[in-house]
């Protein structure tokens, strides 16, 4: 009903034309608005009017400019960081301990026997490179089939430009120039630079020959400047292939058992033993044991700083049982990490040396970030396009897990099999030489492909909550010479209930892991610009320059609507006038008098009609050309009109 009334009124108004002009509207606005500037424009003398007009304009533009800046600032989603340092009761980190050597040599000897014989024979030949005198060595026949899959070759560089490739077990020599693809895989370095540097240039180099298929010409030689590196790398490739065929439970059996490795354990004042550790099979290090992983039960808290309240471990790494060619460094590998996260020992692990006591003071360095849109991080990894293969261990997302999963998925796609070091995607098997003869070539090229790494880096996101354990490591000899005897005796006795001492300095490690006096340093982010901040800043700006508020904006909006309304009415009035003139133009015999035209023109605003919006007009008789009543104009005589008059007087 109301709406209809309103529409009718609007229609009437349209028919009648505008009640007032733009100028009236503006003056009214300036006089009545709550913004500070405009009032002065109409109240002051002509000079000041101009000044105030420009001032107001300037301030208004300043306000809009600064609003733009503020809104921009808000949309850039800045954060402020706050730092807190101190001690509080915290969850003790999960501690993963492994042996640097993955398997007991005594257990895997039967698998690696052939390989060891090969490498020994090869070393024998390499170390005496002059042909002829090596022939008298009598070897049992070697299994050259294993060798030929991934052979080691010797590159003779006596002639710099034309190196000769010598196969170690065969006599045929081939010049590199004849090979179709001989990639020289040293890292970006200019080969000519060192040519004239010294006369004592090394003459022989070892390289691993990798072929896409056995016997094919598509081969790469991986050059090594050091034979030690070449041998290790070759051995790892070969043993990986052999061990990947062994089922998992067998591999676990071949590794170090918890009761053999963890000899003593003390957490705070409470004793613990190897049963408190969770076993996990780590491809790099065999059996690893995790203390306080938090998978089954609640994580342990530590509420006191100092070594007395931390974890104390005695480990035995039994160095005599190391695989000689696989790992040359001896020690325990350990890592502190968060509960329910997978330990990536190669990245974050540290070594503990045998025959020493290693004390590790821990400071938990946390970074709590806000997610999207403040920073590009992921809360739980669900929005990352890479499938997390480590979720099969029931562990949480981490960037390392993502990168490895990404690599493994690529490997499975390109090479058709998964690498032994990483978990398997569904329906894919681990690579081995029988089923995938070209896997080493494929893996090697994939590993050094920079493009592949970049793809993985781009698709993986870091986690929003980043926790690092900052360690202060110190070492001392342990056990001391005086206490050595009884300590070895007791620990050996406890392990196998016999009086034989089965431990020695080369195997025993003591570890103390504890919180430092200040055990946490947390950097947490909070939004620097909230919507409240934005509003108060916007208000501040508007208030500062013009004393305005939201109400002023509404007033302004009102004025705009009104002026639009006037425009519409004016346009309609003009159209009407045009039509009328045309209608009159049809009667050429009776030309309109000048007074008629004037009347038609001026009458528009003063027609005798009952308009809802113009109640004052009703009383006025339609007298065109007559001045409006005097009292009206007198009542609101502006001051500037007054003064020139008085001046003139």
């Amino acid at each position, binding site marked *: 009903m109301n709406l209809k009334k309103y529409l009718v009124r609007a229609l009437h108004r349209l028919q009648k034309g505008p009640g007032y002009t733009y100028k009236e509207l503006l003056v009214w606005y300036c006089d009545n608005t709550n913004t500070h500037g405009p009032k002065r424009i109409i109240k002051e003398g002509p000079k000041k009017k101009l000044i105030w007009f420009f001032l107001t304009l300037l301030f208004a533009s300043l306000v809009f400019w600064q609003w733009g800046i503020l809104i921009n600032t808000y949309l850039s989603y800045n954060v402020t960081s706050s730092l807190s340092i101190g001690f509080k009761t915290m969850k003790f980190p999960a501690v993963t301990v492994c042996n640097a050597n993955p398997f007991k040599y005594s257990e895997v000897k039967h698998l690696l026997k052939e390989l060891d014989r090969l490498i020994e024979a090869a070393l024998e030949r390499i170390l005496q490179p002059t042909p002829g005198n090596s022939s008298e060595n009598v070897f049992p026949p070697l299994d050259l089939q294993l060798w030929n899959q991934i052979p080691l070759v010797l590159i003779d560089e006596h002639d710099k430009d034309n190196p000769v490739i010598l196969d170690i077990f065969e006599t045929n020599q081939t010049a590199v120039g004849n090979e179709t693809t001989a990639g020289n895989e040293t890292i970006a370095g200019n080969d000519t630079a060192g040519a004239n540097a010294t006369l004592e240039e090394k003459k022989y180099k070892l390289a691993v020959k990798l072929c896409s298929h056995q016997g094919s010409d598509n081969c790469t030689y991986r050059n090594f400047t050091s034979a*030690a590196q070449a041998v290790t790398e070759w051995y790892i490739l070969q043993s990986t292939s052999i061990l990947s065929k062994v089922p998992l439970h067998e591999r676990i059996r071949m590794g170090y058992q918890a009761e053999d490795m963890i000899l003593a354990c003390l957490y705070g004042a409470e004793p613990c033993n190897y049963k408190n550790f969770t076993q996990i099979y780590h491809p790099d290090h065999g059996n690893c044991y995790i203390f306080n992983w938090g998978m089954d039960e609640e994580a342990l808290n530590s509420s006191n700083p100092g070594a007395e309240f931390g974890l104390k471990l005695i480990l035995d790494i039994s160095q005599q049982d190391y695989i000689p060619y696989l790992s040359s460094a001896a020690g325990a590998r350990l890592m502190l990490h968060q509960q329910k996260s997978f330990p990536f020992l190669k990245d974050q692990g540290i070594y503990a040396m045998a025959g020493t006591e290693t004390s590790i003071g821990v400071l938990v360095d946390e970074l709590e970030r806000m997610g999207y849109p403040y920073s590009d*991080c992921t809360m739980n990894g669900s929005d990352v396009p890479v499938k997390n293969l480590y979720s099969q261990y029931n562990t949480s997302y981490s960037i390392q897990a993502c990168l490895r999963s990404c690599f493994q998925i690529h490997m499975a796609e390109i090479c058709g099999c998964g690498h032994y070091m990483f978990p398997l995607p569904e329906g894919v098997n681990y690579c081995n030489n029988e089923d995938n003869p070209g896997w080493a070539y494929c893996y090697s090229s994939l590993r050094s492909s920079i493009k592949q790494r970049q793809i993985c880096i781009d698709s993986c996101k870091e986690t929003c909550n980043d926790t690092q354990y900052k360690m202060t490591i110190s070492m001392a000899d342990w056990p001391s010479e005086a206490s050595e005897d009884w300590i070895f005796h007791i620990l050996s006795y406890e392990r196998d209930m016999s009086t034989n001492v089965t431990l020695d300095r080369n195997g025993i490690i003591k570890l103390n892991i504890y919180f430092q006096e200040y055990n946490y340093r947390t950097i947490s982010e909070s939004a620097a610009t909230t919507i409240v901040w934005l509003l108060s800043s916007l208000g501040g700006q508007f208030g500062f320059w013009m004393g305005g508020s939201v109400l002023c904006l509404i007033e302004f909006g009102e004025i705009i609507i009104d002026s639009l309304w006037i425009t519409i009415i004016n346009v309609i009035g003009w159209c009407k006038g045009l039509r009328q003139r045309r209608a009159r133009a049809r009667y050429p015999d009776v030309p309109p008098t000048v007074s008629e035209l004037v009347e038609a023109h001026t009458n528009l605003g003063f027609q005798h009609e009952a308009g809802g919006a113009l109640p004052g007009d009703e009383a006025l008789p339609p007298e065109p050309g007559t001045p409006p009543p005097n009292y009206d104009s007198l009542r609101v005589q502006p001051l500037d009109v007054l003064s020139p008059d008085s001046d003139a007087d």
Partner: protein
Amino acid sequence: RGRLRRLLWILLTLSAVGLILWQCAELLMNYYSASVSVTVQFQKLPFPAVTICNINPYKYSSMKEYLSELDKETKKALETFYGFSEGKSKVRRSVDEWNSTGSDLFEQIPLLKVEDFFRTATDLHTGQKRKIEGSVFHKDSSIVNSGDSNDIIGFQLCDTNNSSQCALYTFSSGVNAIQEWYKLHYMNIMAQIPLETKEKLSYSADDLLLTCFFDGLSCDKRHFTRFHHPLHGNCYTFNSGENGTVLSTSTGGSEYGLQVVLYIDEADYNPFLVTSTGAKIIVHDQNEYPFIEDIGTEIETAAATSIGMHFTRSRKLSKPYSDCTETGDDIPVENLYNKSYSLQICLHSCFQKAMVDSCGCAQYAQPLPAGAEYCNYKKNPNWMYCYYRLHEKFVKEQLGCQQICKDACSFKEWALTTSIAQWPSTVSEDWMLRVLSWDKGQKLNKKLNKTDLANLMVFYKDLNERFISENPANTLVILLSNFGGQLGLWMSCSVVCVIEIVEVFFIDSLSIVMRRQDVERHGHDNPVCIDEDLPTFNTALRLPLPQDSPLPRTPPPNYSTLRHAFTEQLPDTLELGQH
């Protein structure tokens, strides 16, 4: 209305103005504060430069011709004071005969055994007792003064121009005294040897580096740049960025970092200069100068040292937020090192400059300023005394270097986590040493000893880069917003308001005052003056203020209004009439 109420309002207004002023002053004072933001980015990281030095600077065997006299003197001192004879020691017997006369160098700065509460001292060289004049400095006992000071060893430095100016440096332990004394003479000798010779005397890249592996690929000595350090001899910098390319890693973990095996020839160590065995490494930016002697990490032999890095970049705001320097150009100390500015560089350069100014020659451990040369005893017999006095001043911050030098605004830091494992393991030792001996060169028949080898791994623990940066906490926009907020809160005022106040209280009242003066000067009835003031309209407005209140109610003369109303005021009046 009401006098009390008026008073109250005046008070309230004044207190509001006071509050505004106070708060705005507070805002202004806090304008130059900075907020810290920490961002973490996972990305491909540039690998830092890794500088590796042998702890022993020069091969002892090749240094023999330069050091034989000094060594002989040292051995003699050991024998005289401590009854140490060479036969019992592992020190290699010096082949020189004893008949060569000691130079005057050792006569002038002999080791002394101080007795009798610093009155007399036994001269090592002549065995004579001599009186000590001049001041006594205790190098060691300045912090903890040992009670029985009757058996102290030290050396005396005198000003050669003025022999009464002497300083006696004493040490509580002979180990320190002998090392310090040896170093003093050693520096004297080394200062006379040209750089090319020194580089030859030191270790070559082939000597030091046995194997090298980076990012899963082999590398060799071409990836290392030689860098001669005055105290550590030849050092080798991996990834120095010299040829314009800086290597980067896109994978973390020990396999993808730098792995080197170093050959530390323990048998060729100088027994008096260095007493520890191993290597020193430092991880630094390509533009930074490696201050090995100050912040190097020592590497043990017969062990694998794994160093995990975590990269942090920090950035401070320079003036006016904090007192740091962006490039070092604004610091009046010339950068003697050909590297980017750091506080350490500034301090060393500043000291060297002071040294050249006051002693006339440059100290051996720091680079040469233009036109100066290293101190040696032949040319500058006075330099040691001068140096010790200057160094003491420097340590006590009397040289003003600490005041001149400022922090650098941005710096990169690699936090290192170092751990050690036994290497090679007992079972792999045999083949490892054999193969490494082969690597070293076929002609070498003897097998390497594992105490001559050190394995080093430097890698990124993760590729997270932490960037700690300071940002201005306030911008001008925010400051103005806050002003506006204050003004609006207490007075509902704005800049317009302020301009009005200025207008009314300053310009207008000034003109009133001026008019008053005019009136006083010219008498009361001078209409010309009044008319002159009128062009500023507000004075006119303000002038009739006492009669202002009745004015709007009395209508002005009709004719003038009518005239105006017809010509231009018509729409106005209409519009107003309608409301």
